[in-house]
């Protein structure tokens, strides 16, 4: 997003007033959270996926999760690259300036660009095993993900959207990569929850994002951190996440089929 030079920038170090009123607001939030019925940890939020919606890109996809995360992804098929060797996948991950719940961060801030670069690297990790790069020597495949609203599990939604966009662009793939996020609340004996919403993710003691190729049952990315436990805890979280990915797979496949049917109908008309 280009910087808007006409706006008054304001001081470099600006703190949102909500931070100073933090203690009162958080007490209210905690009461609400404890009062509400605890979420079923294995419940998947509703997922909406649609492929083939951008006319300018060769492939595109839009994924929306029930918690409010909206990701738009576009993919471009093989373009000739100058470097010899096998094909390369270039991923880009951008957050819209209005995506976060808190104060609007400056769009060009270094910390944000770092976070975007890290997310792009994670996206590439997740997609590389799925794409048949050996079929595109000396070529570059580009994928660009734009996070419109962050409602939790943003990276997982981006992985699913990017895989859908690549498939929509006609790139040869072994399988669709499906992303799923989990988190574990700070309470001592709490269990892992699938697809956390943004407040749950913020307060979480441990987070895990994984990407799976369901038809091959191969894990293409694991990224997790936080207060740990013995490996059995993380193994249980992985199993829960894999189950979540398998359950989301049919929705993504349906959206691809529908996009192909729409394209055929438009070509025939």
């Amino acid at each position, binding site marked *: 997003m280009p910087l808007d030079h006409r706006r008054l920038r304001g001081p470099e170090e600006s703190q949102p007033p909500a931070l100073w009123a933090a203690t009162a607001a958080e007490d209210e939030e905690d009461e609400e959270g404890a009062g509400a019925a605890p979420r079923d940890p294995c419940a998947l939020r509703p997922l909406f996926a649609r492929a083939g919606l951008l006319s300018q890109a060769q492939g595109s996809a839009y994924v929306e999760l029930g918690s409010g995360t909206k990701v738009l992804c576009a993919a471009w098929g093989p373009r000739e690259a100058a470097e010899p060797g096998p094909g390369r996948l270039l991923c880009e991950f951008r957050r819209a300036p209005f995506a976060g719940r808190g104060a609007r961060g400056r769009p060009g801030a270094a910390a944000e660009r770092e976070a975007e670069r890290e997310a792009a690297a994670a996206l590439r990790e997740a997609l590389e095993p799925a794409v048949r790069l050996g079929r595109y020597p000396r070529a570059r495949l580009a994928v660009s993900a734009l996070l419109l609203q962050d409602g939790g599990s943003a990276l997982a939604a981006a992985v699913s959207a990017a895989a859908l966009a690549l498939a929509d662009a006609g790139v040869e793939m072994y399988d669709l990569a499906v992303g799923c996020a989990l988190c574990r609340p700070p309470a001592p004996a709490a269990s892992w929850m699938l697809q956390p919403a943004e407040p749950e993710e913020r307060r979480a003691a441990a987070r895990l994002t994984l990407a799976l190729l369901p038809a091959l049952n191969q894990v293409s990315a694991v990224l997790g951190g936080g207060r740990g436990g013995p*490996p059995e805890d993380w193994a249980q979280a992985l199993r829960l996440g894999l189950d979540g990915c398998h359950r989301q797979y049919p929705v993504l496949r349906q959206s691809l089929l529908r996009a192909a049917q729409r394209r055929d109908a438009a070509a025939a008309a």
Partner: protein
Amino acid sequence: MASVVLSEAEKLYIVHGVQEDLRVDGRGCEDYRCAEVETDVVSNTSGSARVKLGETDILVGIKAEMGTPKLEKPDEGYLEFFVDCSSNSPELEGRGGEELGTDIANTLYRVFSCENSVDLKSLCINPKEHCWVLYVDVLLLECGGNIFDAISIAVKAALFNTRIPKVRVLEDEEGTKEIELSDDPYDCIRVNVDEVPCIVTLSKIGYRHVVDATLQEEACSLASLLISVTSKGAITSMKKVGKGSLDPESIFEMMETGQRVGKSLHIALQKILDEEENLGTSRPKVGFLG
């Protein structure tokens, strides 16, 4: 990462050997190479350490400086990581080295993101106003495979070696705060490293996984799992690297192996650090001449 070109026959040799639990240099799949750890090598820092793991050479320097605490955590200090790999091979100069450096720094941030790995509350001087910031600078002197493990060992050793001077905050009648350093140069606070995790990299080669892969073994492995383990065996972070995919069963096995190997690594490292500490000032310093 610095890469090595291997022929197909060499790759096959390594893969077949690993299936039989026999690696090129005679180690088993879960053995580390011979490691040398030395602390207090750089005198201008608050703490430093140098680790030589086979061919990999890492130098870590920690400087403790006063800063303002972060807004969300007003009563804690924090750590800042910076990794520099430019002195390595020619392909890591410039952009390549920068990318690898930020990648390693982000991994270190994630590994240390767990709240109780370092006692950050002990780094606070005045809530909301002053705190100690530990700037951890990592220099990759030579890359011989398995840099993440070596870096995490070096960071733990350097944190163990860090001495932060004790300060007192005196308040005037007008309310201006003055920071007073104690007169005794040996009067300092130490960082508690009991919960500091170490990274264990497990590379998948063929059907088995190996710990502490050399450059040649890294070239044969398609996927690796980076696990950070504390001394008590708790896993604090996980990341998969590489172009290949992993079977879920392999991931479970790798986590078990990582926990086992991590615990023994912590025991060995703590023993060496305690021995070095007990030698005190009479320790013969080897530095870069050994």
